[in-house]
């Protein structure tokens, strides 16, 4: 079996299905993310877009189909899952920082116990990442004392410190106050320009237009349409896409 049809493909999803009881959250989705490319998945709530994302690092166990990450197929084996997760960074809607640890400790912990880095190395790396997301001065602060935007940036730094090959973003700005959305999107945009392979579930159309190489529109568990931002926004093929765009672009 070919690992991936094209070795440059970082993520290959073939005919993925995920059922929650009777509900078919994802119903036969195939998707390929080439190295260094950014895919933005949009769609109405309940369309299965977050579920696809969560299947990529096995936070949800797929019901059927195949997922390949960097040429390795995802199986149910724990070792395999942990190994792949270390290569795939994930950023959540609710940030999910560890509230009992400082920002710096949030960024160093997994480096130390998963990547087995020394304390000094992990801290150096953590400060470097906090610097990159623009909040080096918050290293010794606990999450509760940070704004939502700052928390999300620490969460991004935490994921980046693991040197992931892929970054997954699950509605990273949905829980943020409007004035903090930009600071998080700026970090993501810069990450995209640096050539990080990214899959982003988001409602931020501005970001999608600026950063995405391809937009994927999902509804009712299937991909309705995908294409470059220009064609997607200017000339959507499907009626369903047009209705959705007219609803969100006012």
């Amino acid at each position, binding site marked *: 079996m070919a690992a991936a049809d094209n070795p440059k493909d970082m993520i290959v999803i073939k005919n993925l299905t995920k059922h929650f009881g009777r509900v078919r959250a994802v119903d036969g989705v195939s998707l390929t993310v080439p190295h260094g490319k950014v895919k933005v998945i949009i769609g109405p709530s309940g369309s299965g877009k977050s579920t696809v994302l969560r299947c990529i690092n096995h936070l949800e166990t797929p019901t059927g189909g195949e997922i390949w990450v960097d040429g390795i197929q995802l199986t149910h084996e724990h070792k395999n899952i*942990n190994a792949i997760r270390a290569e795939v960074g*994930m950023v959540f809607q609710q940030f999910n920082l*560890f*509230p009992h640890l400082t920002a710096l400790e949030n960024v160093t912990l*997994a480096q130390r116990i998963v990547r087995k880095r020394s304390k000094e190395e992990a801290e150096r790396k953590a400060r470097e990442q906090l610097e990159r997301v623009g909040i080096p001065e918050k290293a010794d602060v*606990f*999450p509760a004392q940070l704004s939502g935007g700052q928390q999300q940036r620490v969460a991004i730094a935490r*994921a980046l410190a693991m040197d992931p090959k892929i970054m997954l973003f699950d509605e990273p700005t949905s829980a943020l106050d409007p004035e903090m959305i930009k600071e998080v999107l700026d970090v993501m945009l810069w990450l995209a320009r640096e050539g990080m392979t990214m899959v982003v579930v988001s409602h931020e159309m501005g970001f999608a237009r600026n950063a995405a190489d391809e937009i994927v529109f999902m509804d009712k568990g299937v991909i309705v349409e995908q294409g470059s931002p220009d064609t997607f926004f200017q000339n959507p093929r499907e009626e369903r896409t047009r209705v959705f765009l007219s609803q969100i672009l006012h």
Partner: protein
Amino acid sequence: MAPSSATLERSAQGQLVARLSKLPWWLLLILLAGVFLFYKFTTDELYSFILGKLKQGILVTIFVTTVAYMAAIVLGLIAGLGRVSKNPVVFNLATLYVQIIRGVPILVQIFYITFVVTPALFAAVNWVGNGLAGPLGLRPMLDYLATANPAQITAALNDLNGFQRSVVWLAQVDAQSLSFLTRVIFALAVAYGGFEAETFRAGIESIGKGQMEAARSLGMSYVQAMRHIVLPQAVRRVLPPLGNDFISMLKDSSLVSVLGVRDVTQEARLYVATSFRYPETLNSLAFVYLSMTVVLSLGVKWIENRMEHGRSG
């Protein structure tokens, strides 16, 4: 003008009443009773005599409670982790334990563990020892030891090497050799372990699913995520209930007196059986327990306050 000033005055009075009613009067009353009894203990010969009688028992009560509690915490943590486990075998074993503990009165559990479980465990150990003795050729030795006198036994055991000696020990060790003190500590630990399991389970489940997901998404294993992320937060959250359980256990430790373990309750019972000084003895006994539990519950309150004002978690 006049009516409004009257209302003002009333409200000032009302404020005073409101403020007074907020004071911890119960604590004041306990303190008063305490002062009175303390006065009695120092001036009344009978009271100070009784306190002297109880002194050794107080130490036993504290010892039993502390050791049993620490063991219960360990047991409870293990069973609590079992209760949130996705492994059906582990989950069912832990749930079985918790359900049995919750459904049987603690006094019955103490009897049961002392007189049924402990001998059964020893029988199991003997069985293992005897099983090993056969293949190791120690059978004749065991038969000989059964009839030998103490001097012969010592001589015979000296001829064995360390491993052989431990096998003989396993085969022969007798439940009688375990004191009732040890057995009731074991019993209290098992009984309270079941309750602590539910406390830990509730604490673990109170930590949002996102914490586990974030940890796992960084490549941590389930055990690593539990240890570094979920448990530190859960334990902090359940400190007050754990403290309250310590107080409960201090009180329930009085049950060990029914087995003749000389805790403070047993000392009081022994004294009263010959002196018939019921009021004085039971006043003293209740005072001893109350002063320990009041101090401990103030400690728990302090932990609660610290958590409320402290950092999140």
